[in-house]
């Protein structure tokens, strides 16, 4: 019989090797599917690489996709570390986007661009944070588990957004299409590279990852939130205000997800539709897990996931492999990663 025994100490090499092994395993499985689809496997990998990094367009597109994933990945990582199971980043993303679009439209705030853009980002963050504070309040006040409530609120948020863009916030110039009024030109984020979609939101996301890494490793708040996550009763006994920590964590986590939505509107799309997010909130959880909840790791995990999506999407166009392969690879990477991480924590004994 195989038994697992927890390691008292995980060697650094193993911690590094685990994610790499996981990705390789996922790519190997993907190879099988690609072969079944009748495409040359090695050529497919090469095409993926080209699709993700082979040209100015490819690189900027990959990075454009990375930005929101970093933010939703951080949202999950920050929350999970404090054992706040925020599965609601998708909904927070949407309400953040909606807030930014509403206030950034010509009926919204009238501010000079230097103030307008930060104000809209903040608005998105606040909206996202508020959506997470609800489930948190239920947990703190009534002990209601947040996994289910945050998950359910995703659908409420989506329906709410749908209602708003078919109602109060509907763009009258969109010929009946359910979409929000667009933000004014001044509210759009500056591009990082001209004639591409890449915008400064990417820098904001990376900057926040660094800040969060420092906060977690070095600050009192970081230590207290870790304690609160690992053993709430002991943290409380030591004078950590659980409510305080969780409220802050929820504000940061929901705020990051809301900010991701705002940035997607301000950087890329200019208005909100219900399909604004191809699952950025859920993928953020994948990103966070791939990064083992490490904020700097989130940047790389987000880049990896974006690479897979963009590269596989392009490969599928080139080789006629169904483009759903990208999702398959990302999902398999996640599952392989979960196994790899847990195996790294345990040794197997017979």
């Amino acid at each position, binding site marked *: 019989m195989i038994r697992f025994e927890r390691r008292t100490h995980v060697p650094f090499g193993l911690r590094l090797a685990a994610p790499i092994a996981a990705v390789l395993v996922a790519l190997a499985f993907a190879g099988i599917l690609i072969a079944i689809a009748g495409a040359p496997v090695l050529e497919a990998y090469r095409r993926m690489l080209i699709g993700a990094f082979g040209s100015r*367009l490819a690189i900027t597109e990959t990075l454009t996709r990375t930005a929101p994933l970093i933010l939703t990945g951080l949202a999950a990582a920050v929350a999970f570390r404090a054992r706040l199971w925020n599965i609601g980043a998708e909904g927070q993303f949407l309400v953040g986007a909606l807030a930014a679009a509403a206030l950034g439209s010509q009926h919204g705030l009238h501010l000079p661009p230097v103030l307008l853009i930060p104000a809209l980002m903040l608005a998105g963050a606040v909206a996202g944070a508020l959506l997470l504070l609800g489930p948190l309040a239920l947990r703190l006040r009534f002990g209601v588990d947040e996994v289910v409530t945050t998950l359910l609120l995703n659908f409420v948020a989506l329906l709410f957004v749908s209602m708003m863009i078919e109602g109060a916030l509907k763009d009258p110039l969109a010929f009946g299409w359910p979409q929000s009024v*667009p933000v004014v030109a001044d509210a759009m984020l500056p591009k990082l590279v001209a004639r591409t979609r890449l915008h400064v939101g990417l820098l904001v996301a990376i900057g926040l990852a660094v800040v969060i890494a420092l906060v977690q490793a070095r600050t009192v708040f970081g230590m207290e939130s870790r304690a609160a996550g690992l053993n709430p009763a002991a943290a409380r006994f030591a004078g950590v205000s659980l409510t305080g920590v969780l409220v802050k964590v929820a504000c940061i986590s929901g705020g990051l997800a809301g900010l991701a939505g705002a940035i997607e509107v301000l950087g890329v799309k200019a208005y909100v539709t219900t399909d604004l997010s191809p699952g950025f909130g859920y993928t953020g959880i994948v990103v966070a897990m791939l990064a083992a909840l490490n904020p700097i790791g989130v940047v790389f995990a987000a880049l990896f996931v974006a690479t897979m999506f963009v590269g596989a999407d392009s490969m599928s166009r080139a080789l006629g492999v169904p483009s759903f392969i990208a999702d398959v690879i990302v999902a398999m990477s996640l599952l392989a990663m979960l196994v790899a991480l847990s195996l790294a924590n345990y040794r197997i004994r017979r």
Partner: protein
Amino acid sequence: AEKLKVAGIHASPVENAWNSRLHEALQAAAKDGVIEYTFSEGVSGTDYPRAMREYAEAGNKLIVGESYAVETEARQVAADYPGTAFLMGSSGGPAGDNFGTFGTWNHEAAYLAGMLAAPMSKTGTFGAVGAIPIPEVNILINAFRSGVKEVRPDAKFLVGFIGTFFDPPKARESGLAQIDAGADILFGERIGTADAAKEKGIKSVGSLIDYTPRYPETVFANAMWYFRPILDAAIKDTQAGAKTGKDYSPFSYMKEGGNDIVFTESMVIKDSVPAMEAKRKAIKDGTFTVPVDPAEPT
């Protein structure tokens, strides 16, 4: 002449009725040796502009698709790639020299289908299942209504919107709900509607594509839409180096061959056909114009 490189980008899988019209027209053009056709399907809003850029960079001269979910961004892309023509199903207007648009105008055929449907109902109540109340959908449903009313002024109408473009089981439920409420002819703007009609043994009208082979006992008429005239016009302009930033919708008119009715003789009431055919001729002649009413039907 050199074959024109054309790319199609479909937001939905190409099974979706609307996309299948584009796809089939493009495939046919490729088969005729006019163009070289590549495509992607199921492209989400987030990926759509990238696909546009990728195809433009890959040297395609004409890119065909739909910009409904990405109106702002799509025009941005066109501005970034002035050497490529874009032909997009869009609610907005054309932009610049190279961003052309088209609407899905098969309302004329829908009007004629309404004329055939009118006398077939026993209850005098007609149902219509739509996706969401955008003008293109509204115009179509309203035209069907006008067609019915011309023959049967006292007719009653039920309209249901399912809130999404692609949920056939839901369209079916909506159709069943209308049958429960007394409708005995359904106008199926959405796939799934005819399934409800079939299940309850009533008749229905199809739109965009020919549903009769799929529901031979049920669908007696279809308001067909043909993309080929629009495509051909755009190909011609592109090859000629003419401005393509214009509205190609008029090529959807019946007189251009852009839409028409197909129906099964044996299923309709014989007496209603001549009047319909007369109207059809009038539309083609330009002596009759089917009213265009984009208001949301209730």
